[in-house]
């Protein structure tokens, strides 16, 4: 009888090896702090953006449980160094516990950021039709920082990426935020916009683009905002599917690899935040979360909000994949924009 030989399956080495880039540049990326708890509370969204790394949309049902929200608030309360709560989705405002989550975090004197897609104000809840027109007043009352995607200051690129009619709805939603004082100098109410390319190319320089946005939105629509964050499209999920279908994946990855910037690598966001999934599992960032790359402590034990331990989380080795090249290309990319 022929003996069965167990073959160890060795995955082929990626041509786009992020860790090799780090080694070659003598860079070691370890956690520096956890100053931000970024919570993805739902994959439900009123929009279906073509580049969305979450694959969010009106049919998604994933929601962080009430126990999960309570646990996040407890973590925030127990750990003063975690000064910022960053709530994302989907459209996080569609989660039934969203308002309570914001109000309680504000009560804990945390800085609260909401990744607000603007159009949800006008579209409302895609399943229940519940209105969300109260949001500008709610945000202002709680003095949360609003961060909103607007891929360009014109309709063509914006609607190409985020769907027909999104640009004009976004202008109306910004008008309502401005009316509450958002983006208005001296109000202290922060409205920051996010630019990301509408295809497989790198963002333009953040400062120049911010000046263009400010000039064009003011002149054409009478709108104001505080800052512009440029973010690179991550080659995962829906955007990767587009790259694969259009035969542009290799060219995009080669572009990211060629643009590797050690200075941008030093400032990657996974060194200072931790990302929470809808089921309470912890990740190094929202992208790792969407790829099911769970964060684990130094002993390989998965991390979760349900047995959260600050020191264990700080001791975790950050997990990398080829998508990380998106955060280190050119001027770098993070949830707060360019990093170099």
């Amino acid at each position, binding site marked *: 009888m022929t003996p069965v030989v167990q073959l160890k399956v060795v995955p082929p080495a990626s041509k786009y090896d992020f860790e090799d880039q780090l080694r070659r540049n003598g860079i070691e990326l370890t956690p520096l702090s956890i100053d931000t708890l970024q919570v993805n509370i739902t994959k439900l969204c009123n929009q279906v953006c073509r580049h969305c790394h979450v694959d969010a949309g009106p049919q998604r049902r994933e929601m962080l449980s009430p126990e999960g929200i309570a646990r996040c608030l407890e973590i925030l309360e127990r750990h003063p160094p975690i000064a910022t709560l960053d709530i994302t989705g989907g459209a996080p405002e569609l989660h039934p516990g969203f308002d309570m989550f914001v109000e309680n975090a504000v009560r804990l004197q945390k800085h609260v950021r909401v990744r607000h897609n603007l159009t949800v104000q006008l579209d409302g809840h895609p399943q229940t039709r519940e209105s969300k027109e109260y949001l500008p007043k709610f945000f202002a009352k709680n003095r949360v920082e609003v961060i909103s995607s607007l891929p*360009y200051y*014109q309709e*063509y*690129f914006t609607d190409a990426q985020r769907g027909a009619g999104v640009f004009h709805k976004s202008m109306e939603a910004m008008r309502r935020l401005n009316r509450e004082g958002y983006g208005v100098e001296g109000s202290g109410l922060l409205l920051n916009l996010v630019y990301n*390319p509408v*295809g497989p*190319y*790198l*963002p*333009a*320089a953040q400062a*120049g*683009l911010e000046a*263009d946005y400010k000039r064009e939105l003011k002149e054409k629509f009478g709108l104001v905002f505080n800052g512009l964050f440029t973010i690179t499209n991550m080659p995962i999920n829906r955007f990767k599917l587009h790259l694969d279908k259009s035969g542009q994946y290799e060219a995009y990855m080669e572009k990211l690899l060629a643009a590797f910037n050690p200075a941008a690598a030093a400032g990657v966001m996974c060194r200072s935040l931790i990302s929470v999934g809808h089921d309470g599992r912890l990740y190094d960032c929202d992208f790792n979360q969407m790829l099911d790359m769970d964060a684990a402590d130094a002993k390989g034990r998965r991390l979760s909000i349900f047995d959260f331990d600050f020191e264990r989380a700080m001791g975790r080795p950050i997990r990398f994949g080829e998508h990380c090249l998106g955060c280190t290309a050119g001027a770098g990319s993070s949830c707060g924009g360019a990093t170099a």
Partner: protein
Amino acid sequence: MSNYYESEDLKKFGDIGQHAKSLADDFFKYYGNVTGTDGALSKREKALIALAVSHAQKCPYCIDAYTTQCLETGANPEQMMEAVHVAAVMQAGITLVHSVQMQNHLKKMVL
């Protein structure tokens, strides 16, 4: 190879250094200094000029490269299309201004 222009060949631009490396090095240094930096003109303005020249010279490699470069410097489609119109109108003007030569000669030829 079945065609004279292959989009994959754009990646081989660096290969022009074969057989004449120092000249290619000089060229790429000059090229990078001119197009790759903000100077009296911004990188975006330079990309729009290069896009117009790419059309005037009918170079498919350059059209692809500078369409991307325009996007990566924050240009919008209206600016890009206007740049192509500048190239087109210059070419039309250059053709038409030569009609002065034709008219000069016509006058000589007509009693």
